[in-house]
C-alpha cells in the first residue's frame, strides 16, 4: 500500500496537535514506510488511524514508538569499534574525566558495548556515561540489560572481533570471555549484563527534535548512530549544530558507518575517517 503525501501531512499534523512529538522534518519516505507498516499491523485505514490518534493518548504513544526505529546490536560494525579502541579512546587516556553521551541509545546495546571497551582499557571508572532515547520502553530494556540469546548470536561474534582480536596484529588473541560481561541463561534464552556494566549509565528520555540536552553537561564523545538517517537535511543540520554546541573543544562525534555530514554545518567539524572532531 502506498500512502499519499497528503495523508502523511495529515498524520504528522494530528500527532503534532495532540502531543509534543513533531515529525515534520522526518525523512518523508521513511515516515511513509513506517505508516504503511502500521496500517498493515493495526488493520486500520488512514481515517481510522487519524481518528484513533486524536482520541487516545496511549494509542498515540504506541504509534510514535512504532514509527521510530529501534534496531541496534552489541558492537554493531566491529571495524568502527576498532577505530574507537585504537584511534579515539587513546586520546583520552590522560584525561581525568570523560563525558560520553549516547544520543538515541534505543535498547542500550551500544551503551553496554562502550562500557565493556572502557573497562578493558581501564577507563570506565573515570567516565560519566549518559544515554537518551525518545522511547521509554526501549530505555527500560536498556536499564535492564537483558537480551534474547538465540536471535543474537552475532553479539558474541562481534564481541570476539572487537575485544579478543587485534586487527593490527592477527597473532595476538586476547583471552577475555564474553561471560566476563554477560551471563548466558539458556533456560530463559537470555543474555544478562553483569552489574559492573550497569553502575555508570544514566538514562533519560529525550526527544532530539525539540530538546537540546537533558543532561546539562558538555561531552567529550557523542554517539548518534543510525538515528539521523530518518531525518531530513534541515533537521540533521540542526542536530549537528546542537551536538557541536554540546561537545567540548576537539570533542568526538560518532555516526553510523554509512552516515555522512552534509550541508553547511560540516565546516564546523573535521572528518577523521569514520568519525568527526569538533573544530
Amino acid at each position, binding site marked *: 500500500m502506498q500512502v499519499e503525501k497528503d495523508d502523511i501531512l495529515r498524520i504528522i499534523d494530528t500527532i503534532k496537535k495532540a502531543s509534543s512529538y513533531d515529525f515534520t522534518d522526518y525523512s518523508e519516505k521513511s515516515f511513509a514506510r513506517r505508516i504503511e507498516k502500521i496500517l498493515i499491523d493495526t488493520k486500520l485505514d488512514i481515517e481510522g488511524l487519524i481518528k484513533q490518534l486524536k482520541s487516545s493518548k496511549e494509542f498515540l504513544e504506541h504509534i510514535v514508538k512504532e514509527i521510530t*526505529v529501534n534496531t541496534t546490536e552489541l558492537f554493531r560494525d566491529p571495524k568502527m569499534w576498532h577505530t574507537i579502541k585504537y584511534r579515539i579512546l587513546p586520546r583520552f587516556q590522560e584525561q581525568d574525566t570523560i563525558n560520553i553521551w549516547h544520543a538515541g541509545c534505543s535498547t542500550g546495546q551500544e551503551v553496554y558495548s562502550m562500557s565493556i571497551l572502557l573497562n578493558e582499557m581501564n577507563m570506565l571508572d573515570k567516565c560519566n556515561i549518559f544515554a537518551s532515547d525518545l522511547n521509554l520502553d526501549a530505555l527500560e530494556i536498556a536499564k535492564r540489560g537483558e537480551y534474547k540469546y538465540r536471535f543474537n548470536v552475532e553479539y558474541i561474534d562481534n564481541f570476539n572481533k572487537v575485544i579478543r582480536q587485534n586487527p593490527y596484529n592477527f597473532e595476538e588473541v586476547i583471552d577475555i570471555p564474553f561471560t566476563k560481561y554477560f551471563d548466558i541463561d539458556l533456560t530463559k534464552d537470555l543474555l544478562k549484563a553483569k552489574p559492573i556494566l550497569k553502575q555508570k549509565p544514566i538514562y533519560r528520555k529525550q526527544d532530539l527534535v525539540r530538546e537540546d540536552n537533558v543532561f546539562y553537561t558538555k561531552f567529550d564523545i557523542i554517539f548518534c548512530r543510525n538515528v539521523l538517517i530518518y531525518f531530513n537535511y534541515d533537521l540533521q543540520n540542526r542536530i549537528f549544530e546542537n551536538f557541536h554546541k554540546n561537545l567540548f573543544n576537539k570533542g568526538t562525534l560518532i555516526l553510523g558507518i*554509512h552516515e555522512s555530514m552534509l550541508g553547511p554545518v560540516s565546516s564546523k567539524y573535521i572528518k577523521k575517517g569514520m568519525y568527526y572532531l569538533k573544530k
Partner: protein
Amino acid sequence: MAQKYVIIGGSAGSFQVVTQILSALPANYDLPIFLCLHRLKHIRTGFIEALSIKSMLPIVEPDDKEHIRSGTIYLAPANYHMYIELGNTIALSTEPSINHSRPSIDLSFISASYSYKEKLIGIILSGANKDGAQGLKAVKESGGIAVVQSPDECQVKTMTMAAIKATQVDHILNTQQIIDFLKKLN
C-alpha cells in the same frame, strides 16, 4: 542522467554470477546498477573488495542520502536496507529484517520501481529463499522489465522460481544472455 536503471537481487549462489556480469561490462557503461545481495552474517566485510577486483566500474557501498551517479554500481551495505528514492538519492535504514533479510531485496526493488517506473530493469539471480519475488512483481507492475536468471543455471533455484511464480517475467536468461542484454541497454 541515465535513461535506464538496473537493479539486481541475489542470494546463495549469486556471487559468482554478479562477478561475471560486472567483469563483462565496459568502463563506459552508463547505467547505474543497484546490487542487493544477501551476505552471510559473518562475512560482512571484504565483499566490496572482492567485487571491485573484477569490475572496471566503480562500486560503492553508499551512505544514506547519497546522490546517484551514472556509471556507478551501488552495493547495499551489510545490515542496512537500501531504498532508491525519488530525486535520485539513496536512503538507508536499520528497520528490522524482512524474511530474515537485511538488506531486503523486496524493499530495494519496490522502492526503485516506485521511483523509476518503466525505466527500471529488475534482475533476480540464484538464491535460497523467496526474497525478491514481490520486488520483481512491483517492477513489472510499474512498467519496468522483469528478468530472472534461468533456474536451470542457478546453484540454488528457490529465489528465481519464486519470482517466476509471482509475476509474468519478460526474460529468463542465463548469465551470458544477461550480460548481452545489459550491454545492449547502454
